[in-house]
């Protein structure tokens, strides 16, 4: 089978063979031939209002499904606008393929109109990137890009394609096999190591499971659950791993780290064995590394060999895919159970008792006031309507931490947030991508008044497609996390933290053609959120929360995670 086709059409055929349903993009000069071919091709294209949001929406799509998200931009400014979204996907290991147009190959390097060195600029922003100047390479490279994005430790891949490749003609023969000799994907795990890990787990008196985004990426939630139930260990899920174990599971403790719970951080600090699954011992989790989990041995299971020992010494590494390794580990544990399980039963019971005490001592409990809307109250209301089943796409800042602490996620791929890069403006476009991916799901975009104002243009995209996204602005009139740090560490000198102008959301939503309202007092809040959820279309809710609330517990930067500040310092009477 071989037809003479344009490069643009060959590209679209390859995308179809990669089961691409949806592209988030923005056209431009050099991608005109591609958009012309797209005109009569059955792939859905979502026209966003800024290329950065195309990358974020593609991520929302990928995070909600595990499938590769696809975004598309033109040369020069189109491509440079994608960069934040690519780095964000890189940090959180999200499979995204970005397609960018490049000026005609003869013009490259001549400072042509809308020319930028996209290949060079995006080298450190991607897992891998390609530049196609020869139409014959196109099919092979497109399939390589999708394979690299989705396999191993997932990540973004950019393919830069010159205009003459889109316009050129070539005989198209579908590629059915690709060969990347230097690209190693480790999946199975070393069987000897897995056996030793099983022994270590049964020998531990205070085992502790530390599960992260790798569990979500590997779709290994059922396998994690089976492991955790077999060994009956307390389990924390990181910011990237929330939903990996259902929030309502009896072994789930909550999130560890800078704004993690007391029980999670005390558990991590006192365990004798950390079973680290798809995590990277990030500084926001470990606090001061030298003081992190001082009594613990570490079993680290990760698909990326470079993560082993990167931050924390690993006593027993297993390089492999959690989906493949965890069942083997569970099988080994089962085999050893008759001989070993009872050995430390008493110690483990005491460990659980201790964990429960920590949990009861300082629970993550939403504060509620009748005088004002506490931000935690808002999260509790979202949680009530979600029931652990809604998708929550969050922006970055205080609201993100409260949402992570207080909203339950009983399934993986419900909690969508920019964890590693912490990109403001992420939440709303990510919610758009998630809603396209999961039209059946209730999707909240939980954003702050800062991040929301970075993504207002996408209200048009929401309206265009009548996406029933519920946008909840937690509006405290400040860049809340900045204000919190300025209060706590910079003598409350609030420098450029106040956002004193915010649009009337009823008018704003109305201007785009959908409903919105502001909520000022706590009594109205439950009804207002119920109304938003009941609305068949999009809804914009501006919730005026108390401006000076801080996120606790908090591990100050450079502190050990068992040195949490648990509550606001009490005001001193003068």
């Amino acid at each position: 089978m071989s037809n003479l086709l344009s490069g643009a059409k060959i590209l679209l055929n390859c995308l179809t063979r990669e089961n691409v349903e949806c592209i988030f993009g923005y056209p431009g000069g050099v991608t005109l031939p591609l958009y012309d071919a797209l005109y009569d091709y059955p792939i859905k294209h979502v026209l966003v209002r800024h290329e950065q949001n195309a990358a974020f929406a593609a991520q929302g799509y990928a995070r909600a499904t595990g499938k590769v998200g696809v975004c598309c931009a033109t040369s020069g400014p189109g491509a440079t606008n994608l960069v934040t979204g690519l780095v964000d996907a890189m940090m959180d290991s999200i499979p995204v393929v970005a397609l960018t147009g490049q000026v005609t190959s003869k013009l490259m390097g001549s400072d042509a109109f809308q020319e930028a060195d996209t290949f060079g600029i995006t080298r450190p922003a991607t897992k891998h990137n390609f530049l196609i100047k020869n139409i014959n390479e196109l099919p092979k490279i497109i399939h390589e890009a999708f394979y690299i994005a989705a396999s191993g430790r997932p990540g973004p891949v950019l393919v830069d394609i010159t205009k003459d490749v889109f316009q050129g003609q070539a005989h198209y023969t579908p590629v059915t096999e690709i060969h990347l000799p230097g690209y190693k994907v480790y999946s199975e795990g070393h069987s000897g190591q897995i056996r030793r890990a099983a022994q270590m787990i049964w020998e531990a008196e205070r085992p502790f499971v530390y599960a992260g985004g790798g569990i979500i990426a590997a779709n290994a939630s059922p396998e994690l659950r089976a492991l955790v139930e077999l060994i009956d260990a307390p389990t924390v899920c990181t910011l990237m791993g929330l939903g990996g174990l259902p929030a309502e599971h009896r072994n789930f403790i909550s999130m560890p780290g800078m704004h993690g719970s007391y029980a999670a951080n005390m558990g991590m600090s006192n365990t004798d064995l950390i079973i680290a699954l798809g995590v990277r011992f990030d500084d926001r989790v470990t606090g001061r590394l030298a003081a992190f989990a001082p009594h613990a041995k570490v079993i680290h299971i990760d698909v990326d060999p470079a993560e082993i020992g990167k931050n924390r010494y690993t006593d027993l590494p297993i390089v492999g895919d959690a989906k493949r390794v965890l069942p083997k580990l569970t099988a080994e544990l089962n085999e050893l159970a008759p001989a070993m399980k009872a050995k430390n039963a008493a110690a483990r019971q005491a460990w659980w008792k201790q964990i429960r005490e920590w949990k009861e001592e300082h629970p993550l409990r939403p504060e509620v006031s009748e005088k004002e809307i506490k931000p935690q109250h808002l999260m509790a209301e979202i949680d009530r309507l979600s029931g652990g089943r809604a998708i929550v796409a969050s922006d970055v800042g205080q609201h993100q931490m409260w949402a992570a602490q207080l909203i339950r996620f009983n399934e993986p791929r419900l909690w969508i947030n920019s964890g590693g890069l912490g990109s403001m403006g992420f939440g709303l476009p990510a919610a758009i991508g998630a809603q396209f991916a999961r039209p059946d799901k209730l999707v909240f975009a939980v954003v702050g008044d800062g991040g929301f104002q970075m993504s207002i243009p996408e209200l048009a995209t929401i309206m265009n497609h009548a996406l029933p996204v519920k946008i909840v602005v937690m509006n405290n009139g400040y860049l809340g996390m900045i204000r919190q740090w300025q209060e706590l560490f910079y003598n409350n000198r609030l420098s450029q933290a106040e956002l004193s102008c915010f649009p009337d959301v009823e008018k704003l939503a109305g201007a785009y053609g959908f409903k919105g309202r502001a909520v000022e007092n706590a009594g109205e809040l439950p009804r207002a959120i119920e109304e938003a959820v009941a609305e068949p279309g999009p809804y914009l809710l501006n919730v005026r929360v108390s401006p000076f609330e801080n996120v606790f517990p908090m591990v100050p930067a450079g502190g050990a995670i068992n040195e949490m500040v648990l509550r606001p310092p009490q005001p001193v009477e003068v």
Partner: protein
Amino acid sequence: MQQIISLLMENKPGALMRVTGLLSQRGYNIESLTVARTLDPTLSRMTITVDVEPQIRAQVIKQMNKLINVLQATDVTDGPAVNRELVLVRVRTNQQSRTAVLKEAEIFQARVVDSTLEGFALEATGDPEKLDEFIDVMSSYGDIEVTRSGIVSMSLDNKKLRLSPPVPRGAAPEEVPEFQSAD
């Protein structure tokens, strides 16, 4: 202390940038870098000399091995490996010093590659420390010009090269609605 890294990589545009990018993004300065194709023209062999803090070294090698264009990255600092470098030296001579310079060159097994009334161009190879000495000696005869190649290294270890096999990819072509012909 310098770390010497030997890489076998695909001979493709951008491959060099990926390797050097890993070092520059961590703020490391590359002391020397040599690269040329191998017997298989689709592959290149690169040797990098770079000053990396000891606790980061293993991480840098792992990151290089993760690069899709890199087939194998090996730390050859602590051997077993042969490290060689080539240096070209232009040295000015007068009637009195010519014989002495040639004698010194002979000691270092350097070859004369150009000879004029003003002086010589000499070529020497060897391990880098020996070349340092050669350059020191030559500079005692006056102003010299030096071009060094940087270290090329060959590992003497029998490390197995693990390559990934081809993988099937894409939905079956017949399942896809194709554009059937050119417009």
